[in-house]
């Protein structure tokens, strides 16, 4: 009888994709799915063109514009494209629109119903599949790990490498298990779970690892919640995040436009069911988190690791053991305009952003709408927008009447895209103002020069909008 060593989910996916192994351990790894957007692809296409190269597998590649698109109307009443004022944004978008068809790649255009943020579109279209290797020139590609895909961000040269060869030269990462056990309290969401994990591990705690999220809390999450958790793997430094595909995953994928059909489907399901980590498989590191410790969470600083429960306070820089963290915390507080010891619920906000590849799926919008139904944003909140992750999410939300809930609550209901997650388009938070944001990065200037970001869940963002300050959503439900 053949016995094989017990393997982790990561090891199984890795083994299934190694084309060749070099003596130094570097592997040529096959890439099953490649998502392309307008920001990191122009120079890759340019290089292919200069070298007279083609795209090896255009059928495994999908192009969608998202970062630069305005979230206001893109067509006028006559159906004509409304020009984009920022010339550089327009040039990046035009380059993708030109390059995709020129290289035979399926392109979802700015006015198509399927358009959206790459990391929302991939799973939604059934393009991203469990057990697949998925790359994109974007650091939040780990998102697709929520389906059990090995997904990670790459640079422009690697985009070119994948386009030309459908492979990458990689060294295997170490493996880490982050096990979240117990049951989440009411009002605590997937976003709070991943913010809490980031607080525990620190922004570089996962560096050099691929993290598998396990435990009863992760199993209980919906697929959308799992995508939210895996999305932020990079925020604790991990190369990728993974969650084992299970019955929920299979139900989620079934019937989507590019999902396997017929005979293929049965084979796919059988393989996906074999991927879970074997009993007795060893991780290089294991971190266990108790669900009872996870509260609705907010960030106070300019690193995603700067997490406290909403009932907490702004920490004093002196409270950190590490000298460089003390420095960083002092700088963060100066940038954020916060005082040590200040209760988080006293922090007034002027802007609310519900969107980004972390939290713009239908469930996120439902969670925010549940809090907002029959309520209005505080007058002190000047700008509140909801940016659905895709045109399909938008249509679904409208069919459920969520758009009306948002509009009646004083929110703007926008077209899909990255928007104020990074402000490459006109959606920016003004300098010195605060934003309760459902996105994934609170870096200096991320949402606009001088903008102050507090990362929260969709329900917490809605609660902050209603009260005009950071608020424990549990007081409103």
């Amino acid at each position, binding site marked *: 009888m053949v016995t094989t060593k017990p393997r982790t989910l990561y090891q199984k996916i890795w083994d299934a994709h190694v084309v060749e192994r070099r003596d130094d351990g570097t592997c040529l790894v*096959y890439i099953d799915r490649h998502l392309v957007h307008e920001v990191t692809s122009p*120079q890759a296409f*340019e290089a292919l063109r200069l070298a007279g190269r083609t795209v090896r597998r255009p059928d495994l590649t999908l192009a969608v514009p998202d970062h630069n698109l305005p979230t206001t109307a893109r067509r006028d009443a006559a159906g004509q494209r409304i020009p984009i004022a920022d010339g550089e*944004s327009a040039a990046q978008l035009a380059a993708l629109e030109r390059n995709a068809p020129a290289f035979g790649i399926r392109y979802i255009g700015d006015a198509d119903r399927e358009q959206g943020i790459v990391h929302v579109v991939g799973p939604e279209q059934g*393009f991203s599949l469990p057990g697949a290797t998925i790359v994109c020139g974007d650091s939040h590609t780990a998102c697709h790990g929520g389906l059990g895909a090995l997904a990670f961000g790459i640079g422009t040269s690697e985009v070119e490498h994948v386009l030309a*060869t459908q492979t990458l030269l990689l060294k295997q990462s170490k493996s880490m298990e982050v096990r979240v056990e117990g049951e989440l309290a009411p009002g605590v969401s997937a976003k709070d779970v991943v913010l809490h994990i980031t607080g525990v591990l620190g922004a570089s705690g996962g560096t050099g690892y691929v993290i598998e999220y396990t435990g009863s809390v992760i199993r209980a999450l919906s697929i959308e919640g799992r995508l939210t958790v895996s999305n932020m793997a990079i925020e604790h430094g991990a190369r990728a995040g993974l969650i084992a595909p299970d019955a929920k995953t299979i139900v989620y994928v079934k019937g989507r436009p590019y999902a396997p059909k017929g005979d*293929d489907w049965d084979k796919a399901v059988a393989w996906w069911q074999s991927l879970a980590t074997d009993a007795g498989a060893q991780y290089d590191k294991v971190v266990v988190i108790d669900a009872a410790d996870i509260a609705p969470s907010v960030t106070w600083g300019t690193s995603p690791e700067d997490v406290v429960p909403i009932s907490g306070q702004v920490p004093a820089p002196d409270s950190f053991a590490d000298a460089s963290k003390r420095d960083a915390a002092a700088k963060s507080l100066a940038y954020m305009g916060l005082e040590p010891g200040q209760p988080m619920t006293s922090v007034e906000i002027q802007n609310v952003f519900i969107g980004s590849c972390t939290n713009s799926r239908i469930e996120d919008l439902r969670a925010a709408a549940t809090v907002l139904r029959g309520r209005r944003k505080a007058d002190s909140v000047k700008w509140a927008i909801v940016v659905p992750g895709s045109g399909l999410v938008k249509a679904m939300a409208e069919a459920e009447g969520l758009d009306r809930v948002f509009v009646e609550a004083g929110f703007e209901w926008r077209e899909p895209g990255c928007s104020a997650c990074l402000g*490459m388009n006109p959606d920016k938070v003004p300098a010195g103002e605060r934003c309760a944001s459902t996105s994934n990065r609170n870096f200096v200037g991320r949402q606009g020069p001088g903008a102050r970001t507090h990362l929260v869940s969709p329900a917490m963002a809605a609660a902050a909008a209603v009260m005009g300050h950071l608020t424990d959503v549990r007081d409103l439900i």
Partner: protein
Amino acid sequence: MEPVTTIDGRAYPFGQKNVDTDVIIPSHWLKTITREGLGRGAFESLRQDPDNLFDSAEFTGSPILIAGDNFGCGSSREHAAWALLDLGVRAVIAPSFSDIFSGNAFKNGILTVVLPQDAIDRLVEVARTDPIHIDLDSQTVTTPFQDRFVFEIDAFRKECLIGGLDEVGLTMARGDAISGFEDAVRAERPFLARGVELAA
């Protein structure tokens, strides 16, 4: 990529330490769609000074840059390598480089040469008035004054640079292995082999 065997010519006697990618190419240059033209943004902040090295008649267009410790630290932006290439730089000599920068430089055919600080000091002195010669095959940097410094380089990188082989080209040469793998996937996991062609 153009093969790199020898690099000959004047060298910018720059010598600065901890030059980060923001100094090499400021972030407002990142919204471009081509690699070309980034040379204009290279060292933009330093070039505000009318007497800067990079625009001086004597040094402009030099193929070699001599820098201090930790060159290319900061972000992973590949634009830093593109900007140097567009400026005409084919080799950077420094006591150390950030890993990401040297990887990006290599991918774009720029040779990064690591030499100890005293060698750097001597080269900066020579470069002010005379040319520098780099020979990749013998892994040496020499001057017209009998200076000779030997440097280390990863064997794989050396082979790629001398052959003018970029990583993409090298992997394309493994096309048969990739095709073989694709055939196996088609047989075992056909659902992964089919992509957007499934669209009705």
